[in-house]
Each structure stands twice: as structure tokens, then as C-alpha cells.
């Protein structure tokens, strides 16, 4: 809508899908959680299934810019298909290894969200509809965190990171980190951080996360939220903070 208000987009046709009840709501069946594309952020923050099984998503939905006014109306599907680099939900869903379900004229297909984001530069086109987001519950030993650097509580971030970790003793046994708001697309840093698995989380590991994640972006955003130099530096900082907080969360969970 901001693009429409400022004349950067001039739609000739509007299609209101808001009255399709099939696209709203959250269900859990056979170990999988399905979130309808029109489920609003406020529901994600308060839904019993999401709060229990996907606390990272519940928390991050409360960090979406724009405050309650946007949380009450903004949908998880809209947040994804807008593919806005500063939006909060895609990095989190990537860290949670979500799949998405897409309805097209030739049928329904299911694909990893990461694959869809890699295939499309903006939106799903005019003939496809994102219908559901499909996720496995987080494991009971998972520690998680979503860190967002922002100038006001309700604003866009200048860098954000979602982290999911698990520990074996004091050593990292799982480490997934996705960084957003620094490049056009969220950056999955998990592979780059693979070398930290099996090692203890300490200051040296934190410094390693920061340097590896700062080096990760090939192209950087340079906008009102911060210039490219800032974004590269903050990609590392926010990733380190997210892993640090996720480790602390995992340690609390295991006690």
C-alpha cells in the first residue's frame, strides 16, 4: 500500500481475498503445523499452538514494524509474498525450515520457502496464491532468539537475525542462523557456521560468528535504515547477539 499511495505502483485491478476462510487459521496434524496465509500477526503472537510449538515465530510476530495497527491487519502470507527485504517473517520461517503451499492454475505445490525465495525476485506472479505455511514444531531442547536492530520499537530493522540452536553439554549440536534486512534476500548463514558445531559457545565462537556473518553478504542494502558499511558490520553483530541469546535460551530450557 505505501507504494500505491506514493504512485510507485498503480494497480488496475484489485482482488480482495480477505473473505476466504480457508486461508485463515492454525492447525496441527500428524506432527505438522499449518498456518493459513491470511493469519494475522496478532494471532501468531497469541495462538496456543504457535506459542507452544513455535515460540520463535510468536515472538518475532510481535517485533514486526508498525505496531498493533499492522499486527491486527497484516498477514503472514502478505509479509512473505511482498518479499520486502526489511520484513521480519521470512528470516524466521527460514530458520524454522518452513515449507509453503502454493495454489496455481495447474494444481497445488509444496516447496521449501528457501527455494521459493531463491526462484522469485518479487512475489509469486498473478496466477499463484500462497495458501499455507507448513512447519515442524521446534524440538523441546531448542534455544531460539530473534534480534532486530531498529531506531524505534515499531520501525523497520537495519539488520535482524533469527537463530535456533541446541546444545550437547556446552557444545553446539545444532546452529541455524538467518540474517535479514541487510541484503535484498534473507541470508541463511547456517552452512557458513557449520564449523562451530561440536564446539563450545564462548567469546571466541561469538567473534567467529560475527566475522563469518559480516563477510556473508555479496550485495548490501544502502537505504534510510543504514548505509552498506553499517549493514555489513551489523549483519555480524546481530547474528552474534542472536546466537548468544539462543544459547542462553537453550540453557534455561534445559534446567
Amino acid at each position, binding site marked *: *500500500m505505501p507504494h*500505491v*499511495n506514493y504512485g510507485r505502483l498503480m494497480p488496475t485491478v484489485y482482488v*480482495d481475498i480477505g*473473505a476466504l476462510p480457508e486461508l485463515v487459521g492454525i492447525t496441527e496434524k500428524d506432527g505438522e503445523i499449518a498456518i493459513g496465509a491470511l493469519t494475522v500477526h496478532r494471532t501468531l503472537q497469541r495462538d496456543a499452538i504457535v506459542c507452544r510449538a513455535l515460540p520463535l515465530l510468536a515472538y518475532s510476530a510481535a517485533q514486526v514494524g508498525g*505496531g498493533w495497527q*499492522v499486527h*491486527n491487519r497484516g498477514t503472514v502470507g502478505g509479509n512473505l509474498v511482498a518479499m520486502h527485504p526489511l520484513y521480519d517473517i521470512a528470516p524466521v520461517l527460514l530458520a524454522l525450515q518452513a515449507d509453503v503451499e502454493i495454489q496455481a492454475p495447474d494444481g497445488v505445490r509444496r516447496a521449501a520457502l528457501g527455494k521459493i525465495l531463491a526462484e522469485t525476485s518479487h512475489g509469486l506472479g498473478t496466477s499463484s496464491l500462497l495458501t499455507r505455511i507448513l512447519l515442524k514444531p521446534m524440538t523441546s531442547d531448542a534455544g531460539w532468539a530473534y534480534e532486530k536492530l531498529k531506531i524505534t*520499537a*515499531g520501525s523497520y530493522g537495519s539488520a535482524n537475525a533469527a537463530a535456533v540452536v541446541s546444545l550437547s553439554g556446552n557444545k553446539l549440536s545444532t546452529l541455524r542462523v538467518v540474517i535479514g534486512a541487510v541484503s535484498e534476500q534473507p541470508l541463511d548463514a547456517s552452512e557458513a557456521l557449520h564449523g562451530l558445531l561440536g564446539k563450545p559457545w564462548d567469546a571466541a565462537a561469538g567473534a567467529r560468528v560475527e566475522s563469518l556473518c559480516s563477510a556473508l553478504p555479496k550485495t548490501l542494502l544502502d537505504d534510510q535504515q543504514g548505509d552498506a558499511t553499517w549493514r555489513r558490520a551489523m549483519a555480524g553483530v546481530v547474528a552474534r547477539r542472536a546466537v548468544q541469546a539462543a544459547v542462553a535460551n537453550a540453557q534455561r530450557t534445559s534446567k
Partner: protein
Amino acid sequence: MATNMEEMLEDTVLLQCRVNNKPCELAIAPGTTLLELLREEMRLTGTHMGCMTGHCGACTVLIDGEVAKSCITLAATVQRKTITTLEGLKDADGKLTPIQQAFWDEAGLQCAFCAPGMVLTATELLKSNAEPTDDEIRTAMAGNLCRCTGYQSIVRAVRAAARVMKQLK
């Protein structure tokens, strides 16, 4: 051949909703924002036009009791819904609500450009949470920018409103 009127009707949506407790039925262009409808068609100028990007909160209204930013809401999507603007809060005698009164008493507003967002968000907050903590008030208010007060008096106003509303129960 279609007449101009028929062509015009083809390009409009018949919107039926309630605005400040009055039924509203009018034909609108599909791209009309709720903000445009309220300010330009209905002359409800208590809903302010600010950033037009959904950041500042000056255009806030209640849709079925929940705050929303009318500048990024297409009017056609509020079909059969109940809209309350800042003008719609006061009672028939023109008496302010406890929340409006508290903003007045505590100087929660200075220029009052942010009034729709602040007052209506406080309205939604106190409906579901009668005794919010300061953190809860600040979290609820995060979608509204104020450039006068420094926010302290706003938090004070919401706290004061909560106290008064508790006494009235």
C-alpha cells in the same frame, strides 16, 4: 453501448459498513483508502493523514474494535465492519471517555497530530488489559509516533485512564 453512469458503476464497489455507529452505504473506487473515505467523503478529519506508509499511526481507526492504519487499508476491505474514528469515542452528550479525559489531564497530547493513534490504541489496550504495566503500555503504543511529548506523559495518561476506569467498574 454502456452509458457513462454504467461504466462508472462497473468501476466502483458498493461499500456497506458502520462508521461511528451510523450505517454507511456508498459506491467507492476500488483503490480508495479508508483514510480517503473518512476524511474526504465523510469529512471525519479527526483521522489524520501523516506518512501514508503505515509508520506514524496518525491515521489510526478501530475496525471491529481493533486498531488499524487507515492509510494502508483499502476501504473496500472493511465491508460489513464497524469503524470507529476519534470522533466516535465521545458519548451522545459530547462527554469525553476516561481515556480522552486522562490525555487532557496529563498533557498526553500537545499538538495532537498523533491523537488518533495514541487514544484509540489505548482504547484497545485497556479493553483487554485493565492494569497494564508501563512496558505493556509502551509495547502497545509502538505503532504511533509523537514528536511533542517525549512519550512520558502519554504513558502517564494511559496509567491514569486505567485507574479511573477501574474505579468506574
